[in-house]
């Protein structure tokens, strides 16, 4: 069976591209090497929809960030994803830093960022009482927001699948052959054929490009460590609080998350390991020390987890690379989609569709495209009467599994069954937050594992945390059966 378009990589860019292409009469497949979508950079990042004052004017980053950020609110609403336009501040703690802040303001004006203004220290403190009193001023951007990056990816892929896109998990592309106007995309013995290819492989986009014949790119992983605090601290600040950026990146931020927790981080360190998930003492100590400049008294007793994300930086190129292959114009490469990749993703998806059209693909709008998708969290927001209607229809909505986040069996089964299907413990957690609360799965792990096994027709010992090799169990007890 031959597809019109194969998208390699189910991160936020791949998923939104899939959803964009699902508007048209096309056969589209997404090839994801992991057990779930959003497993690379989209899994663990700051979740900030940047205003767009940071990129250099005239770059793709500047144009796509501003355009993507403007699309995000409506997109999130269509996909049932939580998005808050909470605004951001870049805090200055000296006159030198304030000079940089003024430059960012100028850049924001040049980039066409809506809702930016300069604040005095007193104005900052009036809006954000926990900011360190040493603050001398800030750039405020009211058009900036927060969104859950993997939630957006999962919802985009789900909506794409609802509109006919296919998804293959654990499909690690290792070879691409080109002949007679088509690509044969191999993962071991398996092969998928497609007329057009989108390389949105994130951390591995350089290797996929090389498989098509473009071997001039090199991705370097940059890792960022974060700490996540309990929801009890989610209102410590309302804006995303940045520090003045340096050559190393945007610096350590303090921000509420779309789910209501407080996020502190990241570090930014170039590493070798593209799969890195390690947190370090040094990294977490650095975050605490650096964040202390913005807010002096962050209650780290309330940390519920720490994590590491990797971003795919491109060696020798600061801007996004979004262009057809030099060897074969029917392959579109997306490389170096680091920050502001999440903010730009909706605009990148449109850009890819336009490049495909330029490359000769006919885009005929589908009559029955439905761009709307229900949130996973419908049940929790229903009135008591509505909840009781659901429970009457399906009693499993009355059976509480995750106590901390109050997630019922019905919601977990629904998360496993819906597009994109959840095959692993982490996949369930990222869809409905079961196991993401204060006990971090202490109580519900055994129950969720049973549901994952039952719904996916697996043995309990086959259930994994995040794919092959991460099995939860090593076998049965002596008396177990």
């Amino acid at each position, binding site marked *: 069976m031959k597809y019109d378009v194969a998208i390699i990589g189910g991160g936020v860019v791949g998923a939104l591209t899939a959803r964009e292409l699902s508007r048209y009469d096309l056969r589209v497949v997404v090839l994801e090497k992991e057990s779930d979508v959003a497993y690379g950079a989209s899994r663990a990042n700051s979740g900030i929809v940047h205003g767009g004052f940071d990129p250099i004017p005239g770059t793709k980053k500047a144009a796509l960030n501003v355009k993507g950020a403007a699309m995000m609110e409506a997109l999130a609403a269509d996909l049932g994803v939580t998005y808050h336009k909470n605004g951001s501040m870049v805090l200055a703690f000296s006159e030198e830093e304030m000079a940089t802040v003024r430059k960012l303001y100028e850049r924001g004006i040049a980039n066409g960022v809506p809702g930016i203004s300069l604040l005095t220290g007193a104005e900052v403190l009036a809006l954000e009482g926990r900011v360190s009193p040493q603050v001398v001023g800030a750039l405020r951007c009211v058009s900036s927001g927060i969104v859950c990056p993997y939630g957006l990816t999962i919802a985009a892929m789900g909506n794409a699948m609802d509109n006919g896109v296919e998804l293959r998990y654990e499909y690690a592309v290792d070879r691409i052959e080109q002949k007679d106007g088509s690509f044969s995309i191999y993962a071991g013995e398996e092969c998928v054929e497609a007329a057009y290819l989108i390389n949105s492989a994130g951390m591995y986009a350089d290797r996929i490009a090389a498989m098509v014949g473009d071997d001039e790119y090199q991705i370097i992983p940059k890792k960022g460590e974060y700490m996540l605090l309990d929801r009890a601290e989610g209102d410590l600040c309302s804006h995303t609080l940045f520090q003045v950026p340096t050559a190393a990146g945007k610096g350590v931020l303090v921000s509420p998350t779309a789910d209501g927790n407080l996020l502190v981080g990241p570090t930014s360190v170039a590493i070798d390991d593209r799969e890195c998930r390690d*947190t370090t003492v040094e990294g977490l100590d650095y975050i605490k020390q650096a964040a202390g400049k913005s807010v002096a008294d962050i209650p780290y007793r309330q940390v519920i987890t720490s994590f590491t994300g990797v971003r795919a930086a491109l060696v020798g190129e600061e801007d996004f690379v979004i262009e057809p292959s030099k060897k074969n114009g029917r392959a579109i490469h997306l490389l170096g989609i680091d920050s502001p990749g999440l903010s730009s993703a909706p605009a990148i998806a449109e850009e890819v569709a336009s490049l495909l059209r330029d490359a000769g693909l006919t885009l005929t709008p589908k009559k029955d495209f439905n761009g709307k998708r229900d949130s996973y969290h419908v049940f929790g927001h229903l009135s008591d009467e509505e909840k009781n209607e659901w429970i009457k229809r399906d009693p499993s909505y009355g*059976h509480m599994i995750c106590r901390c986040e109050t997630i019922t069996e019905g919601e977990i089964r629904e998360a496993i069954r819906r597009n994109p299907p959840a095959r692993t413990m982490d996949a369930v957690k990222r869809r409905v937050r079961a196991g993401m609360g204060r006990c971090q799965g202490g109580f519900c792990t055994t129950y969720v594992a049973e549901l994952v096994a039952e719904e996916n027709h697996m043995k309990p010992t086959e259930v994994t945390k995040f794919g092959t090799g991460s*099995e939860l169990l090593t076998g049965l007890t*002596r008396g177990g059966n």
Partner: protein
Amino acid sequence: MMEAREIVIIGGGPAGMAAALAAHEAGIRDILILERDAALGGILQQCIHNGFGLHRFGEELTGPEYAERYAREVYAKGIPYALNTMVLDISKDKIVTAISEERGVFHIQAKAIILAMGCRERPRGALNIPGARPAGIYTAGTAQRFVNIKGMMPGKSVVILGSGDIGLIMARRMTLEGAKVQAVCELMPYSGGLNRNIVQCLEDFNIPLMLSHTVSKIHGKGRVTGVTISRVDENLRPIPEESQYIPCDTLLLSCGLIPENELTKSAGIPLDRVTSGAIVNEERETDIPGIFACGNVLHVHDLVDYVSEEAALAGKAAAGYVLGKTKRGTGITIRAAGAVRYTVPQRLSTNEAGEVRLYFRVGRVLRGATITLTCGDTVLLQQKKRHMAPGEMECLVLKADIVAKMQDTVTLSCEEVAK
């Protein structure tokens, strides 16, 4: 019309059942126990080792046997209970909101409420252990449920961080199931568990207990492949030079229990910062009249026998409240000082409370200690104890005549006697 009950008990574990039986004994019949699990018994259901009930029944029972004794009485007395029912909210005016498959979301107006929700384990995130994020990291209680309830093995080669009782019990349990337990690491220079568990679960199986050690790094991509353990300095920071790598496929965490007081907080009941449970008086009544708390939701107990005893106090007191017999007085505050970390109760309703058993824990190991209760400059009571440790819950019996001498604030302190 909203359902009304004289006493609603949240939690059908050892505390909830003992409270229900005591309330029944005191003459209340309109009781409802709400239990989120599929059976009464709480965490005891998965505690299949013995050692329960020595104080209460004078014999060694397993957890399920201990629970069964109470459950049979609950059935025999016909005390109503609802299983698979999770309480979502309690309000200041004692409206309980719950959810179940049978009833959906429903509300009950209670005259009195007894909080008996138990506790949860401290997870990895709260410990902030650096390193990789592979599968194979479990709290000891989760591993216990996999092994004892599901008949499944969470790992074959195990390191345990924390020497809390569940960790010690699981070291033995995993060994009996054929796993190799490499070591139990304890951050503090003393164990957080009962001495008898260190002897019976570690020493008898030649499992090393490494005091002043912690896991400083977790290794592994898919599944845990090993941990780095390090000796810690006096500030509990790992010493890089004194580190070693231990290959293993599983890390179990037994690093403390946290009372589950989310409902308590949502009702606006003040909590004790040390116990993380409600502040209560000798009847285990919280700051909201008619709402009582007992068992591990109030403070973490060492033995279930004391949970039952405390729950019986709360059950009887809740019955007294419903029957209008509650004594009210000017109130006495009990302050913890010196090595005493906390006391339960933290208050007395009146100095006419009669005999009171004052429970407390110390914050460090004391050899040859003096326990002193003072009121102003007056020493009300002084006792000597040869050995005290943070893992053991202490009890001081205050006779009625001593209680009668209390005014305003009394202070309980513990000091080590010079050798």
